[in-house]
């Protein structure tokens, strides 16, 4: 039990200490991005990594979370700490009909269907101007004053957002850890391994996939809501972009599919690689990013974390072997 809790405790301590260590707010921004992408990678990983259902449309769920949070704040005066979870719930609700339609298809056909759904959602956001403001989007100018344990929260500082992102990322990782030990998680792996055999042994594959999709959508919607509050700007190009869907796929794949820590590792690598080449090469930085992706997938198909875990296990076996001998 202590061995399983140890990494969590270490993670929480590291997250709490980080703001005191980083030299300036740029690094805090990078940390916030890593945490947000950890959440999003985890969201995608539940469905893609465990159930083997590769979605190319998670941007739609992210975008719904972002829009709901934004619209509730600007039109109903509901603060983001209510808006973000409601954005997640909205994304989960929308995922149900999407799942019922798309899960009729298997493999690449499912993936293409999710891609199409994401484009539909984007077109709706662009054209339903009374609700979404179309291509103009929304902008938050000021946040409501908030006191937290008697202290006024400074929204101009990045610290409150860092705390929020840390909480969300931990939530995403915890959801994955829970799934890994649950019966639902075992069912998903069975579906990934052989869907017909899973049905034959009594697993309701549609139910398992729809439930997981809803959980995944909830987390992606939380990520979108956080994005809206942090960047204070939402428009279809920013939050319903296909790049977002792809980034979630890459983070989970580079980190390690179907593992708890994979999305965290993937987010750390891809965000830092992305930010550092962006700094050095104004033009064409995506070439280096792409190159890194290709190398990672070519030489570590099980992901960075997947590979590291295997090496660690081999090392442990060797050391224990020596002790025994």
């Amino acid at each position, binding site marked *: 039990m202590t061995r399983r809790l140890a990494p969590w405790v270490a993670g929480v301590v590291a997250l709490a200490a980080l703001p005191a260590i980083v030299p300036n707010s740029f690094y805090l921004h990078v940390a916030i991005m890593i945490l947000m992408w950890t959440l999003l990678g985890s969201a995608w990983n539940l469905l893609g990594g465990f159930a083997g259902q590769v979605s190319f449309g998670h941007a739609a769920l992210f975008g719904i979370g972002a829009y709901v949070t934004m619209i509730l704040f600007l039109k109903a005066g509901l603060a983001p700490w209510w808006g973000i979870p409601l954005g997640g719930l909205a994304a989960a609700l929308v995922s149900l009909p999407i799942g019922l339609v798309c899960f009729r298809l298997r493999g690449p056909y499912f993936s293409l269907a999710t891609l199409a759904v994401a484009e539909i959602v984007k077109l709706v956001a662009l054209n339903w101007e009374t609700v979404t403001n179309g291509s103009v989007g929304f902008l938050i100018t000021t946040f409501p004053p908030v006191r937290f344990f008697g202290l006024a929260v400074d929204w101009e500082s990045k610290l409150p957002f860092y705390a929020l992102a840390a909480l969300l990322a931990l939530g995403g990782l915890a959801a994955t850890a829970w799934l890994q030990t649950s*019966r639902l998680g*075992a069912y998903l792996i069975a579906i990934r391994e052989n869907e017909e055999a899973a*049905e034959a*042994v*009594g*697993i309701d594959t*549609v139910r398992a996939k729809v439930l997981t999709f809803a959980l995944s959508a909830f987390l992606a919607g939380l990520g979108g809501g956080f994005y809206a509050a942090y960047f204070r700007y939402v428009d279809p190009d920013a939050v319903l972009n296909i790049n977002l869907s792809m980034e979630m796929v890459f983070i989970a794949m580079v980190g390690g599919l179907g593992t708890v820590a994979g999305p965290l590792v993937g987010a750390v690598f891809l965000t830092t690689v992305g930010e550092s080449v962006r700094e050095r090469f104004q033009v064409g930085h995506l070439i280096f990013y792409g190159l890194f992706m290709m190398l990672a997938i070519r030489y570590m198909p099980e992901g960075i974390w997947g590979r590291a875990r295997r090496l660690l296990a081999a090392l442990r076996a060797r050391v224990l072997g020596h002790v025994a001998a």
Partner: protein
Amino acid sequence: MSLLEVDGLTRFYGGLRAVGDLSFTVGEGEILGLIGPNGAGKTTVFNLITGFVQPSAGTIRLDGKSVVGLRPHAVAARGIARTFQVVKPFPGLTVKENVTLAAFLRHPSRRDAEAAALEVLGRLGLGHRAGDLASQLTLMDQKRLEVARALATGPRLLLLDEPMGGLNPSEVDVASRLVDQIRKGGVTVVLVEHVMKAIMRISDRVVVVSQGEKIAEGPPAQVVKEPAVLAAYFGKRAAP
């Protein structure tokens, strides 16, 4: 009353009739052989009973209750388990994990499911391979795993689709004893099989299907002498 009653079962694929007006019953504790030439529709019958394919017409009843229209997982919950002609293990999981997933159907807690899985594996002589990946097993052991997984769902009726296909003669003997042992364990068995020696030895009764229709039914020794059966297998000139 019979455990399984199939009445007027029909399935069309476009204009092609894969199964036509097929009726048969299986009694509790019986071993029924379903035989017929290649392409006769035997596997389709299994797919129809287990909900993988929906019938165009006809009824299928387990214990008097219809199972038509149920999805495969719901049919399994009612107590009908099956194996696949081409084995479908969960290749990346261990033997024990494969069977535990099936045992979840009757044992919601992981500990109970794992215990049930180990019990079934022991019964089928796969206990020593519990920790190995399913993909590492020999074909014979993969077929055993397929049976173990089906049994772990706690079925009343087990449908075996060519459990002996691809096995050598001594393996066929082992498999035959296994089927008999399963029946002694209280599970009714229907098996599709091409290995006639095994069918003759272990089935109480056989149903012969050709081009989707039943052409004969009865004790194995008697059925193989019927002219219609000989004609279906060897052509009309071979039949007396």
